[in-house]
């Protein structure tokens, strides 16, 4: 048992690092679906744009202040993109037409990104001071991945506090539960919804940027990211913060520990796992208590 | 299928529904004779909806039995109960909005008389189905609207359509869930007439807020409070029942007049 743990501890840690990135990207998708009932297929494109912002900002020998600037730029871009998408989708009610619209936007965005940044694989370097390896379980482990886990955990905690403990969060939750009621007490729900969409997209862009030193940036990555985020969100439960977290952790482990243990079936693991979860718990592992469900 | 005259069409035996610690329906025993016009009333939160769901089969009872015409149907789900003749309506009329009025009824007729899963059309058989459906529409006065999309109907018309669909199921007993909620006075009037005109062999059970309707439609009334059956009798008996008054009025300061509309 101990030797098993020893052999697979790194895989599990890696799964957590992957989960950290996936959580950041997926949580926005999930919240937007929960509050606005919008299935945003342009989410992957927003995330990829975040990665390309990294490409634009970060040359070799990145410093931490520069990195922080890039993160802020990605967040700002995501915020704007989210608000624009919120405005675009506000008049489109039906999920399938939202899918048509947002996938159209994603296709356009993908083409524009390729035009600007070219078709080559681009890489983003982590800040030089975080680029090294540290010893974990007696083996070298990339420090940057530990940092990502830390950042992601911090964001998750902040999100939890904002959503559960503040007035803004109460407003968001109330909007999820009953939009008409919130409107009746004089709140402009469009602002709330635009804010959620913006915040969700900002998180996706940040997630894309943080993942860029590991995954790089290239055309087609947006689809991969979108699919993974969809799986995370659906497995975890649509519209729920904790669901996105649990879904990300599960997908992270399936993609690392699962692959390590059953490498000959590696290609099938992710979707097989999703199918099993959905067939046994159709609403996901930790569904939101309120809100719209498709 | 006992054929005994005394056997009630519907018998509830010790029906109980619990959600964890909460008991929504508490050992309800009730018999409804064939052809009755029965009403189920009770103050808000009395467990009417829960009892309704358990009888209709939407929710499985924690304890107790539901017996229809002498046959224990406790283990049947909603569609199973509908097939043996216990048909329900919905509080918010839920119809097939995207298809025509006629098709709504045809769906019901087909289940009862046709082969609803046959994947190819058979003009002759389908015509028979259509004629049956049209006759049910005739019974509720919606013939003119047969080709309209169901979604284009008014609220009252939808209720009429729902009755036509229920009729098409060849019901022995129909459960109406607050049928007149949201109806205008005229619509309520029309609907009441419609229910009154149902064939005598069809038993009806109405769960209703509007006590006007209840006392007009029902020849027997059961009163539910806190999940228990507290009264069961003719409208007059129930009206006079002290326990009912208390259940409805609760504390004296409640201003809600009991049976305000009737005097």
């Amino acid at each position, binding site marked *: 048992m101990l030797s098993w743990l020893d052999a697979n501890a790194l895989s599990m840690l*890696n799964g957590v690092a992957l989960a950290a990135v996936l959580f950041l990207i997926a949580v926005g998708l999930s919240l937007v679906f929960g509050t606005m009932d919008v299935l945003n297929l342009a989410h992957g494109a927003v995330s990829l744009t975040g990665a390309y912002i990294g490409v634009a900002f970060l040359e070799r020998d990145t410093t931490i202040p520069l990195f922080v600037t890039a993160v802020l730029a990605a967040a700002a871009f995501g915020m704007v993109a989210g608000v624009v998408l919120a405005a675009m989708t506000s008049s489109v009610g039906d999920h399938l037409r939202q899918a048509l619209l947002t996938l159209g936007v994603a296709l356009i965005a993908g083409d524009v990104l390729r035009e600007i940044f070219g078709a080559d694989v681009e890489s983003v370097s982590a800040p030089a001071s975080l680029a090294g390896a540290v010893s974990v379980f007696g083996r070298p482990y990339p420090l940057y991945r530990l940092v990502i886990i830390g950042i992601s955990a911090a964001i998750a905690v902040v999100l939890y506090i904002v959503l559960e403990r503040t007035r803004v969060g109460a407003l968001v939750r109330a909007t999820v539960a009953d939009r008409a009621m919130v409107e009746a007490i004089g709140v402009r729900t469009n602002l709330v919804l635009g804010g959620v969409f913006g915040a969700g997209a900002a998180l996706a862009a940040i997630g894309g940027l943080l993942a860029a030193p590991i*995954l*790089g940036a290239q*055309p*087609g990555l947006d689809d*991969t990211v979108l699919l993974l985020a969809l799986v995370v969100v659906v497995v975890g439960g649509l519209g729920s913060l904790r669901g996105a977290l649990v879904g990300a952790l599960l997908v992270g482990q399936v993609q*690392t520990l699962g692959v390590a243990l059953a*490498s000959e079936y590696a290609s099938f693991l992710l979707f097989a796992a999703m199918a099993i979860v959905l067939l046994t718990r159709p609403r996901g592992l930790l569904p939101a208590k309120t809100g719209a469900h498709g | 299928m006992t054929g005994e005259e005394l056997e009630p069409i519907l018998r509830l035996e010790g029906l109980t529904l619990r959600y964890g610690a909460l008991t929504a329906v508490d050992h309800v025993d009730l018999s409804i004779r064939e052809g009755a016009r029965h009403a189920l009333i009770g103050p808000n939160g009395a467990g009417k909806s829960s009892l309704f769901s358990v009888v209709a089969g939407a929710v499985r009872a924690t304890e107790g039995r539901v017996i229809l015409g002498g046959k224990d149907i406790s283990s049947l789900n909603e569609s199973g109960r509908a097939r043996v003749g216990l048909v329900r309506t919905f509080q918010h009329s839920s119809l097939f909005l995207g298809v025509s009025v006629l098709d709504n009824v045809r769906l019901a007729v087909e289940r009862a008389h046709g082969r609803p899963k046959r994947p190819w059309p058979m003009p002759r058989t389908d015509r028979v189905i259509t004629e049956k459906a049209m006759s049910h529409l005739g019974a509720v006065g919606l013939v003119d609207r047969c080709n309209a999309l169901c979604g284009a109907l008014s609220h009252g018309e939808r209720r009429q359509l729902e009755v036509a669909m229920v009729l098409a199921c060849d019901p022995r007993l129909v459960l109406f869930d607050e049928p007149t909620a949201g109806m205008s006075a005229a619509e309520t009037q029309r609907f009441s007439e419609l229910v009154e005109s149902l064939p005598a062999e069809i038993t009806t059970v109405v769960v209703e807020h509007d006590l006007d309707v209840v006392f007009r439609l029902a020849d027997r009334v059961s009163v539910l409070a806190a999940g228990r059956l507290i009264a069961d009798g003719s409208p007059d008996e129930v009206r006079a029942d002290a326990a009912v008054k208390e259940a409805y009025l609760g504390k004296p300061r409640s201003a809600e007049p009991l049976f305000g509309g009737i005097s």
Partner: protein
Amino acid sequence: MSVSSVPFRRRPRRLVPVTIGAASILLLAACGGGSISEGNGGEESEGPVKIGLSVPLSGVYAALGEDMTQGFELYLDENDGQLGGRDIEVVKADEGESPQTGVPATSKLVTQNDVSAVVGIVNSATALGLKDTFVQSEVPLIIANAGADELTDDASPYIWRTSFTNGQVGAALGAAVAEELGDKEVFLMAADYAAGHESVDGFRETFTEAGGSIAGEAFTPFGTTSDWQPFLSKVRSSGAGAVYVFYAGAEAVNFVKQYDSFGIGDSAQLYGAGFLTEGGVLEAQGAAAEGVRTSLHYSHLLDTDRNAEFVEAYQAAYDEVPTVYAVQAYDAAAALDLALEDAESTDGAGIADALANVGDIDSPRGTWSFDEDHNPDQPYYLREVQKADGGLANVVLEELTQ
């Protein structure tokens, strides 16, 4: 009563879309001609010879497509837009990412644009999907990248290849690695698709023949693997002294970076098919790629006069160093040049016949010729990523003997 007074409103709408649909198809008939009688592509005609260039302009392989276009166009520019003394008209098509778009787009060149030959094709599946079309239409396809072994299985007179076969690239490295490693074992790893398997099989064959032994192997899900740590753990626990891999594109970047950041490079030298560190990929890998050794039929640092001349011209034209992909397309143009010089006719069959007799091609990669299967019989080089002229580059260590 009049029927027309019946208020049917919706039905008539059905008419128009149907008519529009039919009319649009009719519009396509502009180029008319019918499709139920015999007729081959690549008809001999007056004016310039039409050559199709089908490379990915979109999707994940677009970078390769760009290099190939540049290589092909450079050769044309160097020869005043002529091949074999004849004017050339290039018709481009977007191969895209998969056969779903690549096959129809390329077929169009043959069946619609009547080109005399087609150059390009990155994706092996697309090439396989196209093979029948070319053979049937009697138009030669000069594959300038796709490496599937089975493409040239039957040496069809219409299928030629100026690039490589996946097996060859791996096989070229086997003996050299076996010699280098001595009694240490090698771990094999590749993306889990045909190219990966063929490459690994090619390597394994020559490597074990030369006395090497295998520590283990792993095939990673193609296109969805972002994290190699589980596989790298296997490498570590296998105690292998070296690793041979086949990866390309984004996977190559991520793999090499992770190989470096998990510190496996200290105990196991990384070998691979040359695509692992070729072109834009190497730039993205950065320092992580330093020391990686690969086999390939080209490096822009190849020290020959012919190559120096080519690199200079390429840099002057496009302000970047040429990649193997550019050379493959450049050589496809060269092969066409030689063929057209001798060709009796400029239709597909004429060019195909002439291709069989082009003999040696003097290329930046060294002199090569088509073998009996129509694959290039060419030198392979052992390359190592080193710092060179201000950046990282694939320095040629030696020519690999086979």
